[in-house]
């Protein structure tokens, strides 16, 4: 197992307790994750890499290039609001919630 994959495994174990728990959450067979960690992220199917990075909240491109970096922002963000556009203050409120979601995920 390479350094990147070892770091990834440690991150998963730290947050989810076991690889099995993590696999259940991302709906991926344990054998697939095991194979990815042993053979390397660079050889993995892109949809599997996306599943892993999305759940962990890490940047997919950085992961593919060998680094574990927190995702710059949310993958999906939508708002139900009255009106046509947001004021800077409203955008700040939305960003605040996105930051809260990210911090909760990292706990």
């Amino acid at each position, binding site marked *: 197992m390479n350094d990147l994959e070892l770091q990834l495994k440690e991150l998963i174990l730290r947050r989810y307790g076991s690889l099995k728990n993590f696999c259940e959450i991302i709906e991926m067979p344990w054998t697939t994750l095991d194979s990815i960690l042993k053979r390397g992220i660079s050889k993995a199917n892109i949809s599997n890499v996306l599943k892993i990075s999305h759940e962990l909240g890490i940047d997919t491109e950085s992961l593919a290039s060998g680094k574990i970096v927190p995702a710059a922002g949310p993958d999906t963000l*939508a708002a139900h609001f*009255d009106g046509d556009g947001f004021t800077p203050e409203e955008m700040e*409120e939305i960003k605040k919630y996105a930051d809260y979601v990210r911090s909760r995920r990292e706990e």
Partner: protein
Amino acid sequence: MTNLEKLEEEADQEGIPIDTIRFESERIKGLYCDGNIALSADLQTSADRSAVLAEELGHHYTSSGIILDMNDTGNRKQELQARVWAYNRMIGLQGLIAAHRHGCRNRYEAAEYLDVTEELLEEAVNYYRGKYGIMYQVDNFVIYFEPCFGVFESISPA
């Protein structure tokens, strides 16, 4: 079980936390962010809360990306998809027929029977009108969208 309870149960089963937030801006009713939903604390009624929750769940199932800029055509399309998910989940053509069979005589009664806001019901009917045109038949019921909305039960010849 009310619509709101059903939606909350669905969110729970999907592992989506629902946060109630007192936003500074009254214009923000709800947010969806990576499998998390925030609902404004200002949403007073169960129908208001379920209308927003349904749309945010619609985003969970149908949206991808940052879709805050409504000047972007792709974002508007995703916003509509989420709303359509909410219309179909909360009302649907079967809901319109059920309201008719229950004896609802106007939009207010239908919204109350379906446990949705009048605004959501009106938006849904407008959407179905755009999709189906003048009328649409479901089993032995005909739903007219033009010239005005109405549901009629067809009578089979003896």
